[in-house]
C-alpha cells in the first residue's frame, strides 16, 4: 500500500465560482501534464455548474507552512486585537465600508 496508485503527478485545483471574486481551492487530482490537468479539473470539479474559471498548479510547486511551525507562525496573531480595524467610528454616509 505504500506505492502511489497513480504514476501521474499531483495537481491542486482552484475554481472561481460564478459569483465568487476569487479562485478557491477545491481539491486535487492526478494528470499526465498541465493541459490534461485542466481538463480533468473541468470533469471532476465543475460538473454541477460550479465555475467559470479554473487554475491548476502542480502540487510540487506549492510551498506550504508546516504544522510543526503552527505556534510561531500563527499563535502570535491571536491576541493582537488592535490589529482589527474595530476602533474607528464609521460615518453614516461612507459607502462600501
Amino acid at each position, binding site marked *: 500500500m505504500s506505492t502511489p496508485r497513480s504514476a501521474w503527478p499531483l495537481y491542486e485545483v482552484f475554481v472561481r465560482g460564478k459569483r465568487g471574486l476569487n479562485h478557491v481551492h477545491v481539491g486535487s487530482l492526478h494528470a*499526465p501534464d498541465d493541459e490534461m490537468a485542466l481538463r480533468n479539473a473541468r470533469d471532476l470539479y465543475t460538473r454541477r*455548474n460550479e465555475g467559470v474559471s479554473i487554475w491548476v498548479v502542480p502540487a510540487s510547486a506549492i510551498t506550504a507552512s508546516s504544522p510543526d511551525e503552527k505556534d510561531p507562525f500563527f499563535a502570535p496573531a491571536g491576541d493582537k486585537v488592535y490589529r482589527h480595524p474595530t476602533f474607528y467610528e464609521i460615518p453614516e454616509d461612507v459607502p462600501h465600508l
Partner: protein
Amino acid sequence: MSFDNAYDAITDGAGDDQHWAFGTGFDDPLAGVDRAVPADTSAVDLSTYCLMLADDALILSQRLTEWCSRAPELEEDVALANIALDLLGQARLLLTRAGEVEGAGRDEDTLAYLRDEHEFRNVRLVELDCGPGPGGDFATTIARLLVFSTWRLAVFTQLAHSADPVLAAIAAKGVKELAYHRDHAAQWTLRLAGGTDHSRTRMIAALDQIWPLVDELFTPHPVEQSLPAIAVDPATARPEFDDVLDTVLTAATLPRPTVPPMSPVAGRTGRDGAHTEALGYLLAEMQHLARSLPGATW
C-alpha cells in the same frame, strides 16, 4: 422549498439563487421551443430521423458506460462517464421528440428499452466493442470517440439551423458538448501517439480497427434526403471531418488509415436496422432489467 429532491431544493429557492455560491443557474435547453411538427413535413420521416440521431448517442453512451470503474485512471473514469452522460442527455431529448412526432404514445423509455435490434437506426460505428471488452482497448475507445464526435459536431453545427425548432435547439445544446468530446479525444490521440512505442502502435491499430466504419457516417439515407430543410445531408459534413482529422493526425504524426470500408449487408447498414452481432449483446445488457420487470422504476 421542497427537500424531497436535492435539485429542486437548490433550484426552486423562490427564484432567487443569489445566496448560492456554486451549482446554480440550470437551464432547460428546450424552454419556449415550439414542438409542433413543421408544416408539409412527413411525421414518419421526422420521427425516424430523430431515432437515428438518438440511437447514435444512446448506443455510444452505453458503450462508454462500460468503462465505469475500469478506466486506466480515476480522472479518466469520470471524464468518460461525463461524456456518456452528455450523450445520454442528447438521446433522451431526441427519443422524446421521435415518440412525440410519431404520435403512437411511445415515450423515451419505451423506445430505448422495448425496441429490438432491427429497429435500432444507429450507425454501426457506435455499437462496436472498443474496450474495455475483448474487442478493443483504451486507444480504440479514443479513436472511435475522435471519429464520432468530429462527425457529429460537423452534423450538429448545421442541424442547429434546422427548420424543426426542436432539433435546432437540441443541436445547439449538443454542439458545446460535442466540441468538448472532440477535444478530449484529440488530446488523448496526441498523447497516445507521442507517448511510447507501445502506445503509438496501439493508437495506429485502433484507428485501423474503426476506420472501415467511417464511410457509413457520410452516406445519406433516404429519410435524410426526404427532409431537405430539416435534416442534414451527412455528405456535407465530410470536408470538415477530413480537415479536423488531418489536423489531429498530422499533429500526432500518425498515418491516415487506408483500410477499405465495411460493406453493407445486402445493401443495408445500421441506418436501415442491419447491425453487427455486437449490438444484440449490448441491447441484452441495456434492456434486460426494463424487460424483466415491466414498468419498474428505479
